[in-house]
């Protein structure tokens, strides 16, 4: 089996999902290469070689320094036609979700979004993806070439296995762009996005108001975590929408999810119940969040969270 991995990068950094996908391709026993389109650094080839990717492909052009979804899709389509992989592996990130379907349509190839299981079973690719916001999981059957698969970040952990690095520059004709990114407006500070974070500290209506969010932020800082929120907190205007976790917010699967003052409504659980460990802090022992929590403290969060901050500070020293 031959896999082409879409190398996602931003601001001169390879994104974690790319290394996760390399590790995944390696473990599937596949032959694979990593493709970087746009403003990629030469040493990306060395960085991916550390994870076992012996071949890095580059498509570089002055015009590609600005992202165009349709432009990038056409380039990716041409590379796929040329390299003939069985599988195009991407991240189920904002980029993967935007770009993957465009390529799927250009190539008339099937695509599975947001897979949480990608395995070889009797020489066949076994793919599982959550549907209905994680309430059920679908076992997929795919025909066509290539199979386009986006993998949910954080499901497969990246691990190193160094190999020799090799690079190849591809010359691909750059098409006209229909839509162009003019400007990137990043969060206030360079915020870690919830979908990528290993640890998430989320606050809900129990936080009482935005003036108390310094508690969530301080706890998150100490843990190197991203901050999330329930829809109640977002609807109240306490938190920006891009922090919302749940069925109509983001789906996350961090290693650790700490729910503070969140009741655990079905729509919230839909977005976070696949987290590896869940901690709930809530004063109501009947709150449904405790049904999915691995560890819970039934107490006033305004006592528990400051204590956590104190203890973590002590641990750090």
């Amino acid at each position, binding site marked *: 089996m031959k896999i082409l991995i879409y190398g996602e990068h931003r601001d001169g950094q390879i994104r974690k999902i790319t290394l996760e996908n390399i590790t995944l391709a390696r473990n599937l026993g596949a032959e694979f290469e990593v493709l970087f389109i746009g403003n990629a650094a030469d040493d990306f080839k060395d960085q991916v070689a550390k994870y076992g990717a012996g071949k890095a492909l580059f498509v570089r052009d002055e015009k590609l320094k600005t992202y165009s*979804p349709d432009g990038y*899709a056409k380039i990716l389509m041409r590379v796929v036609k040329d390299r003939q992989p069985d599988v195009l592996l991407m991240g189920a*990130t*904002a980029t993967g*979700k935007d770009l993957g*379907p465009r390529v*799927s*349509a250009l190539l*008339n190839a099937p695509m599975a*979004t947001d897979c949480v299981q990608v395995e070889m079973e009797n020489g066949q690719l076994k793919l*599982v993806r959550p*549907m209905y916001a994680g*309430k*059920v*999981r*679908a*076992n*997929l*059957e*795919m025909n*066509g070439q290539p199979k386009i698969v986006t993998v949910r970040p954080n499901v497969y952990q990246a691990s190193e296995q160094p190999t020799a690095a090799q690079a190849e520059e591809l010359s691909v004709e750059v098409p006209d762009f229909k*839509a*162009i*990114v*003019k*400007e*990137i*407006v990043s*969060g206030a500070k360079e*915020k*870690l*996005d919830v*979908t*990528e974070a290993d640890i998430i500290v989320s606050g809900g209506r129990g936080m009482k108001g935005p003036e108390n969010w310094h508690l969530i932020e301080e706890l998150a800082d100490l843990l190197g975590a991203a901050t999330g929120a329930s829809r109640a907190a977002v609807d109240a205007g306490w938190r920006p*929408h891009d922090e*919302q976790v749940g*069925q*109509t917010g983001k789906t996350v699967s961090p290693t*650790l999810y700490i729910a503070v003052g969140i009741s655990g409504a*079905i*729509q919230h659980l839909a977005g976070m*119940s696949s987290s590896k*460990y*869940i901690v*709930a802090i809530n004063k109501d*022992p009947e709150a449904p969040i*405790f*049904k*999915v929590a*691995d*560890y*819970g*403290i039934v*107490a*006033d969060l305004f*006592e*528990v969270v*400051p204590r*956590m901050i104190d203890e*973590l500070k002590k641990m750090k020293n």
Partner: protein
Amino acid sequence: MNIAVCVKQTPDTEARIKLTEDRSQVDESDINFILNPYDEFAVEEAVKLKENNGGEVTVISLGPDRVTTAMRTALAMGADKAIHLKTDRHPDDPLVTAKALAEVLKEGNYDLIFLGKQTIDDDHNQMPSILGSLLDMPAVTVVIKLEIEGDKVKAEREIDGGHEIVECSLPAIIGAQRGLNEPRYPSLKGIMRAKKIQIEERPVTLETEQLKVASYDYPPPKEPGKIVGDSADAVPELLRLLREEAKVL
């Protein structure tokens, strides 16, 4: 402005999803269906543009008979026309759905095509992007702010950890994300008006699906958790468990 909105009918967010005994399908018997929540933003934006600039809004939905209820909701919000692409079920493969939608969209010569960024049943997140390729039109997904001046489109969209501003020209496809607007509730007048609109029914032939759901499973059950304590004094023990048992700190 000539505007199309593609909408899907989905289970409401509260719905418990039950599988049929053989797990080959979702059991729809107890499900309450609604207009896909993201499609409400799409409809609202279309209707708002029509109200400000004149024009017409056409709702298009592919699916079984039941989807006309969701189409009526969109009409009650202010859409003018509706085209139902009648099938016996929703295809598993979004590309197959998209090709059928693309046929109708081509005919309509729309200036703007709105969709939701995602359905909350299939969760594909694909349709606006696919249609961009099939119709060879600019498509901007996950849009939270939209400005249109003449034939220039400026859209702000969510990306991981930030936003970006995308520019293109009409005709264009927009995938609506929460934040784009506050969808209105259909007024009584709107509901009465919607009842009188004839939904145009069109047969479709679907292509062979390259993506199929072979079977479904419930997610692996969670082991019952541990209540570590009932006061802040439980914090040191909680941190110990996270460090030593879960090994996540």
